[in-house]
């Protein structure tokens, strides 16, 4: 390749060819495989222009395939939640919950309200735990003293002399003190966060039995025994976490603001066009009946509003619209095409036509093969969302989860439950007085950019949001118990034929499960977690997946040259999405008959020679 490397960036603001005039020897290939401190197996392969201090090319690869949907096929539909929970070892319960939502729709059952409150409490605990562990034990290490010393000694030097604006709240005098507290295992805040991630997992276990694959989640409700004690045990732990949040949010604000300050232009790191998707979380049992026909109403009644944000504009909050627009493109992945395969669902229950590339109709045909970065290079496909207004297949990302959740919730302005309130331009979080700290109001404001720092900042605010929302859910659950409405499960029949879909927010972003039942058995089951959205490869339009897009074109601020290069800005960017690769690579509905029919030698050859196949 030559020295002039064209890099296309999507979006109105960055739709420019980044052309480098650097000498050829300043362009170096750098790969990180495996990316550690994430869940699962991910590789990032880049070309970096060290003269221009910019990433000029990025590919994201995944190296594990398991094949969930194939072994779900033909199984009892009620088993789906137990099995799909095992997709992910850090947010398995999000899958169990989402599956249960899809089954409720397919079986036509509405759980008793108390079951929804219990699940909301369990899922809130999951967000509190998972974000805490990821933010301060995994992402935090990228901002710790040891790491900053190795990558940006100049920044550390400055941090030593920079007072933390909220030191009085969190107890660390300088920014460097915060960084030291984040050093793995030896750092005091690292260990405190680890301990808090346990406390919140205890809260989770109270509601859902066991972490991370729950034992008490069923279609029709939960098996959790709803006693006064259950909610007391949860509440006392929650209040400790609420107090913790009053220190953690300002601590992260101090740390992240410092990076903008110490490294002017750092907002460009990991920045991409604002293309965010959120499928909503925390059901409102007064509105939610799990029927497809009423889904727009109960979707908008959720305590985190679903929606799609394009270039800062909220273009829909309607779950039916979001569902109908989903497209699964093969991209540069190790699968054969299923176009012309079986159309399981022609129209949704409202009569909307369902595309062959919609998850309900996906038949995925895996073909293990050599990895060619110019050809097929990953086990992740390319989910996209068809924007009807423009015909564009948007490579939505989740912003690691919280960024999209806040952005849609803030703009929609629907949530208002006292402890949390969406204002139309921000989300207010009120944390009540706790044992040693007064009532505290936090406000997440829509940021200027969808970038690495803002993905991370949103995470810490969402921890507080989950805690605040959980206070409301405890109150609602106790109301049910006090009124004697302690039923947690409703009976149902598995139909011979049926379809269902579940929408939820996994910790790291939008999660959907689509199910087709025939003859009382699973005929097709397609889970789409956040990571296929975020970690997807280039699609056949040439659109980069979000990790690739966020890294490609991103500036480099690390002080090391090519020899000692750690790629810290790239690592921070990739981790800001909260990668969870096991979620990315299970999508496979095998059908041996189809596989034989569809296997064409020319296709295989094309793949070997690196041709792009849609």
């Amino acid at each position, binding site marked *: 390749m030559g020295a002039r490397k064209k890099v296309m960036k999507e979006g109105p603001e960055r739709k420019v060819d980044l052309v480098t005039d650097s000498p050829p020897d300043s362009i170096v290939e750098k790969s990180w495989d495996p990316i550690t401190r994430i869940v699962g197996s991910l590789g990032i392969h880049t070309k970096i222009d060290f003269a221009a201090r910019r990433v000029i090319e990025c590919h994201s690869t995944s*190296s594990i*395939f398991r094949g969930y949907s194939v*072994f779900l096929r*033909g199984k009892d539909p009620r*088993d789906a939640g137990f099995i799909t929970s095992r997709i992910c*070892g850090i947010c398995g319960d999000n899958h169990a919950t989402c599956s249960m939502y899809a089954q409720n729709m397919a079986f036509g059952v509405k759980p008793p309200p108390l079951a929804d409150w219990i699940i909301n409490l369990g899922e809130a605990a999951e967000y509190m735990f998972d974000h805490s562990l990821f933010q301060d034990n995994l992402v935090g290490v990228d901002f710790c003293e040891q790491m900053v010393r190795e990558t940006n000694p100049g920044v550390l030097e400055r941090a030593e002399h920079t007072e933390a604006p909220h030191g009085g709240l969190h107890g660390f005098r300088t920014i460097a003190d915060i960084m030291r507290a984040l050093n793995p295992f030896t750092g005091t805040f690292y260990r405190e966060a680890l301990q808090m991630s346990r406390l919140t997992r205890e809260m989770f276990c109270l509601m859902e039995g066991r972490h991370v694959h729950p*034992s008490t989640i069923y279609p029709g409700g939960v098996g959790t025994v709803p006693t006064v004690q259950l909610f007391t045990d949860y509440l006392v732990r929650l209040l400790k976490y609420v107090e913790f949040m009053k220190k953690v949010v300002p601590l992260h604000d101090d740390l992240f603001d410092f990076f903008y300050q110490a490294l002017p232009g750092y907002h460009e790191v990991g920045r991409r066009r604002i293309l965010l998707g959120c499928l909503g979380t925390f059901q409102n049992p007064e509105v939610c009946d799990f029927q497809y026909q009423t889904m727009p109403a109960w979707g908008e009644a959720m305590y985190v509003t679903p929606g799609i944000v394009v270039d800062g504009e909220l273009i829909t909050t309607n779950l039916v619209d979001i569902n109908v627009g989903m497209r699964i493109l093969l991209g540069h992945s190790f699968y054969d095409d299923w176009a012309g395969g079986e159309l399981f669902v022609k129209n949704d229950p409202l009569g909307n036509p369902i595309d062959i590339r919609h998850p309900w109709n996906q038949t995925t045909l895996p073909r293990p093969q050599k990895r060619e970065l110019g050809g097929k290079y990953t086990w992740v496909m390319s989910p996209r969302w068809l924007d009807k207004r423009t015909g564009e297949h948007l490579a939505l990302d989740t912003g690691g989860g919280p960024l999209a959740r806040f952005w849609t919730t803030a703009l929609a302005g629907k949530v208002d439950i006292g402890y949390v309130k969406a204002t139309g331009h921000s989300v207010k979080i009120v944390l009540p007085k706790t044992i040693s700290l007064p009532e505290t109001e936090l406000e997440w404001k829509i940021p200027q950019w969808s970038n690495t720092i803002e993905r991370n900042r949103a995470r810490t605010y969402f921890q507080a949001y989950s805690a605040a929302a959980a206070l409301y859910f405890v109150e609602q659950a106790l109301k049910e118990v006090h009124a004697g409405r302690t039923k947690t*499960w409703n009976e149902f029949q598995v139909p011979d034929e049926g379809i269902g879909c579940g929408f939820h927010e996994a910790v790291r972003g939008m999660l959907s499960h689509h199910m087709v039942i025939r003859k009382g058995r699973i005929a097709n089951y397609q889970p789409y977690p956040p990571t296929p959205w975020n970690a997807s490869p280039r699609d056949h339009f040439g659109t980069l997946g979000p990790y690739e897009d966020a890294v490609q074109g991103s500036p480099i601020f690390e002080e090391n040259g090519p020899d000692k290069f*750690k790629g810290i800005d790239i690592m921070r960017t990739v981790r800001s999405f909260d990668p969870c690769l096991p979620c990315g690579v299970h999508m496979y509905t095998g059908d041996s008959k189809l596989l034989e029919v569809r296997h064409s030698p020319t296709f295989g050859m094309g793949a070997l020679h690196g041709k792009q196949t849609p």
Partner: protein
Amino acid sequence: MSQEPMKLDPAPSYVHVVWITAGLSCDGDSVAITAATQPSIEELVLGAIPGVPRIHLHNPLLAYQNGDDFLQIMHDAAAGKLEPFILVVEGSIPNEKIKQEGYWAALGTDKETGQPIPTCDWIDRLAPRAQAVIAIGTCAAYGGVHAMAGNPTGAMGLPDYLGMSWRSAADIPIVCIPGCPVQPDNFTETLLYLLYQFVGRAPMIPLDESLRPRWLFGMTVHEGCDRGGFYEQADFAKEYGSPKCIVKLGCWGPVVNCNVPKRGWMAGIGGCPNVGGICIGCTMPGFPDKFMPFMNEPPGAKMSSSAVLMYGRTVRALRQFTQASLQREPDWRRPTTELSTGYTPSWNLPKR
């Protein structure tokens, strides 16, 4: 098995723990160990337990190093430059022999070919040099969910791959700690046991025929379940959410080896049947196929629960009878002018 201490010679002051999560896994076991408190992972890493070597943990979820720096640790271990080490394998082992090319599971890139290094190659390189090998979680132990009937990858457990009678460099069998995921403390406690063994302070780790530590998996779920009393009285739940015995709703607890109801999931909290979740047998070699569909009553439970019906109803009736009496206070507890407790005051006693 010998009860003699089998220590490493020389007794180490630290032990590396080399961890492969790149089986067919969900990383749920790596996540689970961050929940452990008995002991906690930081206690093991920081050397906070007297008399045992501290560990140098090389787990991708928690590693400081990244990419090539992390992979170098694995290469060093494979080359004998990182000793002694315990190899922890997480995830089912795919069968890479059943296809033409490519890989089902891989970790890192081979610098010469530019292709991913299959996980099986790593196991082949590392297992022979390890002082002990732990299969963490049911996937690595027996295959688990990814080895379900109809799976495309030919997945299996580590003992299926290496052989049930495989022995480590220190002559220790594969140690399986099943659970989906592993109960956090079950893992850290087993690791601690091996550390004691390495310095000669514990005999050979006692394992059952499925290679599970005996002290953890010797009892069934039912034997430790706080709902067992309902079973004894033939008092069975008819719907989820009931505090009674849930064996008729799909619980396999009476025939599953697992300590979770007794130990709780973490800090004594949570579990399965004890908190309202059916036991789906996730610690067992037959998981999941032999337990599906999960929400049906296990065939064996139909018979055994009918068998206890007569006995259970009888004892329940007798106990209710006794209990009814115990629910009443003795009749002398009342605000009357007369004392009727049977007490005889000494000042009323007739003089001798």
